[in-house]
């Protein structure tokens, strides 16, 4: 449990948000061309990093907007928050 600085609403309790998992997984441009292995990779396989991870969050009980976050999963410390479409910060 922690505070999240929503880029639209400011600092709010984490329980107002829902986590959308790993960020920057691009939806395949040509779904019909994909092999089963590529589909599995896109749908299911995750880095599940212990450490600094890029992820998507939604302010579900607030502005309901999606945004990205850089968070250390080993201690829940948030390093950066940035809007959808913005370039991820370089460490």
């Amino acid at each position, binding site marked *: 449990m922690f505070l999240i600085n929503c880029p639209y609403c400011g600092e709010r309790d984490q329980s107002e948000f829902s986590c959308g998992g790993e960020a920057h997984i691009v939806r395949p441009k040509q779904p019909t061309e994909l092999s089963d292995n590529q589909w599995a990779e896109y749908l299911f396989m995750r*880095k*599940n990093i*212990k450490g600094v991870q890029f992820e998507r969050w939604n302010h579900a009980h607030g502005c309901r907007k999606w945004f990205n976050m850089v968070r250390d999963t080993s201690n829940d410390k948030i390093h950066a928050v940035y809007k959808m479409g913005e370039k991820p910060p370089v460490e």
Partner: protein
Amino acid sequence: MKNKYSIFSLIKNAFSQHENWKQAWGDPEPKREYEAIIIGGGGHGLATAYYLAKKHNMRNIAVLEKGWIGGGNTGRNTTIIRSNYLWDASAGLYDHALKIWENLSQELNYNIMFSQRGVMNLAHNLQDVRDLKRRTHANRLNGIDAVWLNTNQVKEFCPIINTSPDIRYPVLGGTLQRRAGTARHDAVAWGYARGADEMGVDIIQNCEVKGIKRNGDQVEGVETSKGFIKTKKIGVVAAGHSSVIANMAGLKLPLESKPLQALVSEPVKPIIDTVVMSNAVHAYVSQSDKGELVIGAGTDAYISYTQRGSHDVVEGTLKAILELYPIFSRMKMLRQWGGIVDICPDASPIISKTNIKGLYFNCGWGTGGFKATPGSGDLFAHTIANDEPHKLNAAFNLNRFVSGDLVDEHGAAAVAH
């Protein structure tokens, strides 16, 4: 057995104030090379080593544990054992484990305090009633004992449940598996460790795996905090940290690691002699032999490796507990903790080979791995020894995420994941 536990050894040791009991397992330094290495010294890992030695005669093996044995999820769960899963593959897997549990104390010569006190799953709405009745029928077709109880029978079986129709989520009935129950979690790890050690397995604690060495498609060994160890077969049983080990081998798994919480109350006299689980309101409760209420809460809804979990999750569970059991309203909770669980998209485990030769994974048990400990160890040992899955774990392969042949136990497993 060189040091058999019995009533006679207990009496004999009583005369020396119990100061001469021999250490139950050793503390060896790692050898340079092993026939197989198991990463993770929890219940599943130790059981795997035990069955590799016992049934497959692989004695030159080691279990590497980064902390102390049984200190991860084996020591952090709510010790519930049941096999009332919906799908045939799951029923086969979990009932295989339950059958081993029934004789495990005798087999290990170690009292794991297995108690078949029954597990009751409650229904709180019409969909719950339909789902649980369907599961009861499916269980019985698979030879697993299951009965449907109406509200009055639920009250009769566990009188402290509030069955008033006026509560927010009234009890509309429930299912009961009488062969289900609980076991002493630490004893399971210790019993398997003692059994494996006796057959020559090296149990190496405080030894963290730092890397996996590959030569092309074949594993060659592991880098550890105690140096490099050579081996041709690695079985990974690292629960919440499975992805961390997989990343070392250049592999991705379909897992997300999240904290799952549990808590215990102050000890009181016997008040609940069974295990009651409620999916819809997410509250499980049983009572330990010490008298504490053992309460299972939910997972945090984001990836985290912090072994604590959020307060609001505990609060939600305790609200549900209080509505169902008003008698507990003045009890104090003593301890709360979190364990990191590795959750699969289909809420079923992975006991599988990988596309790297000699690398095997036993993971994805998510929120319910304890119940499967003996069966999981037995089947994973079979998979490692023969380089082929046993028919009971064939469906739980890693390739199911490519083929689409998932074993979807979300909800179907009688519990929210």
